[in-house]
């Protein structure tokens, strides 16, 4: 009877794991999620913009009509809805292919993404406690856009190029918004931060969805 040494089996498993990690392509944002999230962001940005304009016409003496915390809460609400829809979509795809919901590829993606989201999460918590008093939506929005971009770029070792481009688009937008802070702050809040959210989380995601709609990738089983 032939036997295979344990050492050889371990070495084979190590080679398999390395090859798989190197070759895995995982699209952290699927095209349908991007489409849904993009539409929701555009609709929300539109509603806030129209509402502010309407109230500005009715009561021009009031500088702002939506509270700073209300603005942040609305966008966080949109995030929760998009995450719920994405979870449902991933669950449906996983069930169809007989894969676990949290696949090894998803764990890989989460390990890359989560550290980048720690800082914007802290800024958001601070904003709800203290930051709102200084009408700091612009700072909050820059952190959201910039660190979201960084999170996408952090998946570059296993993400398709389109997702990395999307990450760079977000990051560069945040960089430009930071450089042009003085000019942006000149305009009344929350219209500028709202427009920035609509343009990035809305428009960028829609462009991304249109570009990748017909290029599915299957996560590692």
């Amino acid at each position, binding site marked *: 009877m*032939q036997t295979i040494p344990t050492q050889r*089996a371990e070495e084979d*498993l190590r*080679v398999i794991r390395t*090859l798989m990690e*190197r*070759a895995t392509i995982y699209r952290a944002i699927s095209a349908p999620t991007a489409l849904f999230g993009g539409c929701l962001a555009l609709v929300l940005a539109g509603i806030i913009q129209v509402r502010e304009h309407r109230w500005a016409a009715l009561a021009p003496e009031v500088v702002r009509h939506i509270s700073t915390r209300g603005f942040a809460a609305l966008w966080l609400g949109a995030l929760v809805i998009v995450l719920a829809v994405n979870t449902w979509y991933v669950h449906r795809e996983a069930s169809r292919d007989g894969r676990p919901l949290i696949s090894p590829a998803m764990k890989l993606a989460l390990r890359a993404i989560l550290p980048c989201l720690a800082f914007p999460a802290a800024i958001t918590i601070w904003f709800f406690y203290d930051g709102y008093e200084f009408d700091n939506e612009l700072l909050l929005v820059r952190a959201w856009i910039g660190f979201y971009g960084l999170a996408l770029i952090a998946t570059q070792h296993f993400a398709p190029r389109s997702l990395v481009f999307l990450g760079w688009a977000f990051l560069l937008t945040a960089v430009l918004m930071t450089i042009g802070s003085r000019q942006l702050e000149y305009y009344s809040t929350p219209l500028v931060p709202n427009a920035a959210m609509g343009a990035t989380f809305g428009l960028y995601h829609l462009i991304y969805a249109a570009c990748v709609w017909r290029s599915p*990738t299957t996560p590692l089983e």
Partner: protein
Amino acid sequence: MLDFDKLDKAIHEKGRLAIMTLLATRVRWSFQDLKTELSMSDGNLVTHLRTLHKLGLVAQTKEVKKRPQTSYALTGKGRTAFKEYLRVLEQIVKAGKG
């Protein structure tokens, strides 16, 4: 130690094991991508793919876009065989440690 005969010998060969591993990670791989990723010669890669195809472990698709392109994917049988191969390897490691 476990019986070596339990391991699928078609997959156990180093080159074919690497091919099967890559095919398990995506829906399909083009010949060029496989060649680049594995740094194998054309002849060597073709021979291994032909062997796996004959055994029904790998499906082959030929497309003509701008130029002819052949892509490869694991068949259901191939996916099952690869999973079984991994299971046996893990058993060997466990038995060795236990």
